[in-house]
């Protein structure tokens, strides 16, 4: 399967790891990621106002590029996924937005939300399959207790994202099991880390980050994994001394697949 891949701004910069490990692991799993040409930043926040058209355009350009190739669009960053998935939903269901966007873009054929938008994790679950992944794992992370941190953007609003059960998700836990580690369930995994406040109001962000680390640690976790660069930054930088280490899930995937050794051996 070949996907049109939308890396997003952060993955080209501060979250290079998320991107690099993701690409290498995908290749090892036989999944082809074709980076969309001349993609533009998704805007990082979904424009909730129904009269905001310009802020939706870059997503639609990426979606249309995928449509023209007949490929599903794959994202890795939670924020990009959230924005693109919701804009796609708008184009499919909101006639007003659809008309305005298409009037602006003047595409050959109007874009009407045809592209399927998938997150890397959904690709692992639905295309590769966690069972297959489990078989491909060379370095199972036996005994490691890992807390999945979902945050808000992947899950909500569940009616549009339809990613997983918004209150009791399982996809990252299933991923953790597939790489041989032990998932830790804790209550704060789907509560906001306050990432959007991280710039302006560090104190507020820190309170929430503290709560997340606390909850995960009390549940016995040794490590937190996430798919979101902003959560990653916030959980890491705004955590206190006794914080847990935070990693991108792709990094663990990369190591579990034994790609590190493979590289070293070359």
């Amino acid at each position, binding site marked *: 399967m070949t996907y049109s891949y939308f890396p*997003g*701004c*952060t993955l080209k*910069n*501060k*979250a290079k790891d998320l991107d690099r490990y993701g690409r290498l692991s995908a290749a090892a799993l036989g999944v082809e990621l074709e980076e969309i040409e001349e993609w533009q*930043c998704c*805007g*990082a*926040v*979904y*424009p*909730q*106002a*129904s*009269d*905001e058209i310009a*802020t939706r355009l870059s997503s639609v350009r990426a979606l249309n590029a995928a449509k023209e190739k007949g490929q599903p669009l794959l994202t890795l*960053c939670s*924020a990009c996924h959230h924005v693109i998935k919701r804009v796609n939903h708008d184009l499919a269901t909101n006639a007003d937005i659809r008309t305005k966007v298409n009037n602006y873009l003047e595409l050959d054929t109007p874009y009407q939300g045809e592209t399927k938008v998938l997150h890397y994790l959904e690709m692992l679950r639905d295309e590769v399959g966690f069972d297959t992944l489990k078989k491909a794992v060379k370095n199972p992370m036996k005994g490691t207790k890992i807390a999945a941190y979902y*945050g*808000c953007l992947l*899950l*909500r*609003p*569940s009616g549009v994202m339809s990613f997983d059960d*918004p209150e009791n998700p399982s996809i990252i836990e299933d991923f953790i099991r597939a790489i041989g580690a032990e998932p830790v369930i804790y209550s704060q995994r789907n*509560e*906001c880390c*306050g*990432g*959007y*406040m*991280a*710039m*302006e*109001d560090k104190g*507020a962000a820190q309170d*929430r980050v503290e709560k997340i680390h606390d909850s995960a640690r009390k549940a016995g976790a040794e490590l937190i994994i996430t798919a979101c*660069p*902003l959560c*990653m*930054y916030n959980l*890491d*930088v705004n955590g206190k001394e006794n914080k847990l280490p935070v990693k991108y899930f792709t990094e663990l995937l990369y190591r579990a697949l034994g790609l590190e050794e493979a590289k070293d051996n070359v």
Partner: protein
Amino acid sequence: MSDKITKEEILRICNVQPKKCMKCGKCSGTCPAYDEMDYHPHQFVYMVEHGQIEKLMASQSIYKCLSCFACLERCPRNVEPAKLIEAVRLAVIRQQGKNHMTENDVPALLDEELPQQAIVSSMRKYKK
């Protein structure tokens, strides 16, 4: 504020129907930014419905909302308070000179690790 922003304008921006609210307070019960806010999500719904827009526009709450969509997800009446808060924020920053944050403010807030996403989203959320 030269032009008074009306309830109708707010509702046009976000396409929310505050009348659907049954005043259960679940949005405020679930809000992670509750303690930082002067007006809480359920008050946004009530106050927009009652035309008290100016108070909300002057409120710090509009910059405290984390856009985590917990209120929107859990509202039993699908009122979508998050959209209302965003609409009020937009009504403020769309006015001349009312940007909450501009490019000039960014360097002071930067640190080594801050991801682009945080900067881009701040510009999107807080600047015209």
